[in-house]
């Protein structure tokens, strides 16, 4: 029957490749057997803490072997892991802890001071610090967690921006993680010989996919924290990386001559594939990747966390249609539908819907929003649509005559930046937290350099210091929420119902400042 829980991947790979390195991070590494035994002991230790089955456990750790052990230990204990990206600030971390009622947190000591300010109004009862993990594992050595569960059990909650306000928790079953690993490994042809660069964070669906594929295939993941593009190019060579999953921001840094020196003659003989997700890669960058990594296959992928992974473009098609997001991944169908729920003609813009594998369970704590994004299948006969559930992506796409899909934009005002979905409301709330700001409007600015930036317009109560306001944003929010430019307006035009007339305000700002 196995695998039906994610940890079964590890169990099966451990039987086959016990002495092989599963995870490498700098000079540290751990084999499949080490990972299996330690995560089993950790699971046993966590079970001893008396949490009820299905309790959520937060992980606030940097990318590390300890983070991987924590994920697997939590699953072994029959609990749900919630990975919190350490780049988040107090406000966002508090929201996640509260929203899914985290009682137990595994955290790095260095975030201790930050956590002191946060914990008072959360349900967190216990923190296991990173340096206590080893003690717990050691104390439970040889013990088995023996968790029984089903593939439909919740494995993880991934937080991502919704169309309004603070991030929403997307609930993912073991089955979805297993399907995602199998499907992606299939079309990327991942084998046991792979050395995958673990560059993307595990609180991002595709980042987590690098770990699950590693456990599934018995290959190796090399964890890497991206700071400087030159170091990325170096590690590809030094670690003989075969698979490089990345997002547009990384490429805009690599191909920025002020940030990175590229040796045009450099070869990457080991590098078998590059995959891109988390936003559309501009065609000039696609061409640069093809030129510099000419022997490497480039997979352009598209997915949203609600449906884990949706489409990819066959590498053989990239030079012919570099702006396409391809077709549905195996065991998944996608369609473009119009407002009447009918399938669009080629060239007609409509909403992308996703059915088949990889449909997640919905949003934690939010039945209304879940009912809006996860709906009955409109392609079935009307009376039987309830039998199937599909994801309405909110993404506008079109397809060509051969069925290749092209991303057009968002139906809502959501901004895609650096692989994050940013809700304008979240940025506006951030700005209005400053005492000089009266009203705020945030919107997306598309730029050539593969980066979508956030623009913001504010009206002031009195005077306003833009530089100070930007610093204020930076102190209170992660970098991806900070507007690249903030403009001060005298006032915002209102609609008849008294709401800010956003399109008009944005247009007026454009006329005022860009002419």
């Amino acid at each position, binding site marked *: 029957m196995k695998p039906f829980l994610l940890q079964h991947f590890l169990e099966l790979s451990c039987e086959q490749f016990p002495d092989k390195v599963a995870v490498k991070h700098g000079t540290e590494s751990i084999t499949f057997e080490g990972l299996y035994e330690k995560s089993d002991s950790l699971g046993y230790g966590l079970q001893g803490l008396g949490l009820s089955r299905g309790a959520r456990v937060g992980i606030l750790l*940097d990318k590390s072997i300890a983070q991987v052990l924590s994920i697997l230990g939590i699953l072994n204990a029959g609990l749900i892991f919630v990975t919190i990206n*350490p780049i988040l600030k107090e406000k966002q971390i508090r929201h996640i802890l509260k929203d899914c009622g985290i009682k137990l947190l595994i955290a790095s000591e*260095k975030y201790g001071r930050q956590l002191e300010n946060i914990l008072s109004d959360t349900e967190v009862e216990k923190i296991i610090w990173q340096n206590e993990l080893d003690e717990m594992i050691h104390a439970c050595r040889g013990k088995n967690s023996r968790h029984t569960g089903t593939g439909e059990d919740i494995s993880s909650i991934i937080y991502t921006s919704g169309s309004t306000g603070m991030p929403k928790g997307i609930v993912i079953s073991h089955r979805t993680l297993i399907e995602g690993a199998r499907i992606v490994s299939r079309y990327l042809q991942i084998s046991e010989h792979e050395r995958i660069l673990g560059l993307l964070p595990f609180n991002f669906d595709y980042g987590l996919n690098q770990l699950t594929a590693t456990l599934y295939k018995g290959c190796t993941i090399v964890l890497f924290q991206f700071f400087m593009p*030159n*170091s990325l190019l170096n590690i590809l060579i030094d670690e003989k990386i075969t698979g490089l999953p990345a997002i547009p*921001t990384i490429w805009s840094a690599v191909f920025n*001559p002020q940030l990175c020196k590229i040796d045009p003659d450099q070869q990457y003989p080991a590098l078998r594939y590059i995959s891109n997700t988390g936003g559309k890669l501009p065609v000039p960058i696609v061409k640069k990747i093809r030129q510099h990594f000419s022997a490497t296959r480039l997979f352009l992928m598209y997915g949203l966390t609600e449906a884990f992974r949706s489409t990819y473009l066959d590498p053989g098609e990239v030079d012919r249609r570099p702006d396409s997001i391809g077709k549905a991944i195996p065991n998944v169908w996608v369609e473009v539908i119009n407002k009447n729920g009918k399938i669009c003609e080629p060239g007609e813009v409509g909403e992308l819907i996703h059915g088949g594998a990889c449909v997640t369970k919905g949003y934690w704590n939010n039945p209304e929003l879940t009912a809006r994004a996860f709906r009955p299948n409109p392609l079935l006969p009307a009376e039987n649509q309830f039998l199937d559930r599909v994801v309405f992506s909110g993404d506008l796409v079109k397809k060509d005559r051969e069925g290749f899909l092209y991303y057009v934009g968002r139906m809502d005002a959501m901004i895609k930046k650096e692989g994050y979905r940013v809700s304008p409301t979240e940025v506006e709330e951030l700005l209005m937290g400053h005492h000089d700001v009266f009203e705020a409007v945030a919107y997306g600015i598309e730029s050539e350099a593969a980066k979508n930036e956030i623009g913001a317009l504010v009206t002031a109560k009195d005077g306003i210091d833009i530089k100070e306001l930007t*610093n204020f944003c*930076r102190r209170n929010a992660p970098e991806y929420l900070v507007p690249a430019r903030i403009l001060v307006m005298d006032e915002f035009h209102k609609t008849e119902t008294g709401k800010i007339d956003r399109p008009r305000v944005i247009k007026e700002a454009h006329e005022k400042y860009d002419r």
Partner: protein
Amino acid sequence: MQQIIHTLGEYIKEQYNAKLDKQENIFSAGIIDSIGFVNLIGFITEEFRIELDPEDLVEDNFYSLERIAQFISEKKE
């Protein structure tokens, strides 16, 4: 040197509401992510009027406030 370290420390305090010891490893301190780093490099080039070559942009030159200050002093010579 001390003055440069102080200026850098103030920048971190102002931008990130955080305090770094001069020898603390910036990359593992969990304060700055990669985009923040690009901003820090922009600040350094403007504030200290130095020009950076792409080959300068390796972690070895930036791992702590003290190391950055040393690197800036070398570039200014």
